[in-house]
């Protein structure tokens, strides 16, 4: 049974890779058409890198606050955090970007596309991170709380020295996945004309009609950003591996 499954998976994936590679490789590309736009691509990629990096930091901060809210002993912060998380997770990012920029940001006279995009993207990612963080914290066994209490730790000390260090390891893989999503999700910011990587590809396509040539660099560009996160996460997981 195991051999059968291994064979099936290998054949299916192998065939898919070969087919896609063959299709992509056998196309006749007009790279010369997009060559003059290389600077735009580079600028777009840099913008994506900047906005993703900033959103990553901001989303961790907001996510941690939302987690604290959800774990609060008081009802009001608990409900509000819960509502925030549910609304954000239950609605499309595209809608959030449109409403966030054209309705909310506009109403307070804020028209920095980069700034608004950054905040919306951070809030979106934070809602997912908050759930990941909460799950991580709640997965730490009660015995650890009891032990910390018996030692005489205050609640803050218990979180700092006992719960969070252990929870970090447990939330790393899921958080890394969320960070990779965040980078890819930033591509939706083209709807409010943030000049990020995807936006540049769309513009190049519009100017040159070289569709594949304009969009293919996206694969490489995004992968260069997301792959290191995956590597780093595995590395950190190993570093934090203390169980067993």
């Amino acid at each position, binding site marked *: 049974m195991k051999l059968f499954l291994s064979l099936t998976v290998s054949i299916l994936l192998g065939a898919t890779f070969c087919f896609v590679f063959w299709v992509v490789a056998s196309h006749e590309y007009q790279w010369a058409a997009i060559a003059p736009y290389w600077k735009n691509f580079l600028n777009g990629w840099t913008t994506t890198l900047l906005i993703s990096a900033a959103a990553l930091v901001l989303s961790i901060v907001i996510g941690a606050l939302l987690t604290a809210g959800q774990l609060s002993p008081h009802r009001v912060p608990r409900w509000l955090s819960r509502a925030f998380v549910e609304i954000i997770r239950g609605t499309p990012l595209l809608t959030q970007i449109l409403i966030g920029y054209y309705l909310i940001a506009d109403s307070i006279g804020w028209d920095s596309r980069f700034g608004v995009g950054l905040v919306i993207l951070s809030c979106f990612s934070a809602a997912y991170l908050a759930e990941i963080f909460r799950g991580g914290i709640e997965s730490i066994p009660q*015995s*650890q709380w*009891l*032990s910390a*209490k*018996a*030692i*005489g*730790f*205050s609640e803050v*000390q218990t979180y700092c*020295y*006992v719960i969070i*260090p*252990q929870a970090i*390891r447990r939330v790393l893989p899921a958080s890394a996945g969320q960070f990779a999503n965040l980078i890819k999700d930033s591509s939706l910011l083209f709807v409010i004309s943030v000049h990020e990587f995807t936006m540049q590809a769309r513009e190049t396509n519009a100017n040159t009609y070289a569709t594949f040539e304009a969009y293919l660099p996206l694969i490489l560009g995004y992968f260069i950003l997301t792959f290191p996160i995956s590597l780093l996460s595995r590395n950190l997981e190993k570093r*934090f591996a*203390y*169980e*067993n």
Partner: protein
Amino acid sequence: MRIETQHLSKVYGVTKAVDDVSLTLSDDVQVLALIGPSGGGKSTFLRLLGGLEIPTSGEVTMDGVKLPLKEESLRDIRRKNGFLFQSFNLFPHLTALENIVLPLVKVYGRSQEEATKRAAEVVERFRLTDHVGKRPGQLSGGQQQRIALARAMAHEPSLLLLDEPTSALDPEMKSEVLDLISELCECGQRIVLSTHEMGFAKRSADHILFLSEGKCVEEAPSSQLFDDPKTEQVSQFLHKVMKW
């Protein structure tokens, strides 16, 4: 130590874990053992004595000092005590040495060097020097429990509370840990322990409390309770557990 409880009760939901226990133990008790059937209230009673739980009603007086009913003030009481639980509640992300050093630094305000020196002394006394660099996951159950005991003893607690310290261990490891505890008893350490090890209780404790269904069924000096139990329930219990 002088232990007094007055109408002491602890209720979890609808379960009366400790049910209206009033007793006064004389000054000359150094080692008190709580025995009785599982679920009879031993652990809860022990935790109430150590200030780890707040009573639902009634009060505990230790050496003439009434235990406070507020979490913050109770924390100060806890810090004077040392606890050891059934499932070795070491912090898995820290090494054995760090497990001992961390509370000394963060709870008792000792400097890192001072704490490390003190931890080294305790592990040497407990013959654990070879294991200080290991994480709990790399230690056997008995070693983990001895490290946990070293942690509980590092700040020289006025009272050591042991909650079924050997219940999760195999016989060989059990004797490792019991040896150590009996050494502490001989050195004059004041101890309250809940246990199923009747032989150990008989030999090391000078006073026994038999708890069942949250009530104190019988309390007497060790030799008296084991050799000549006053109640039928205790007599039957002892007959059953000492049979094999």
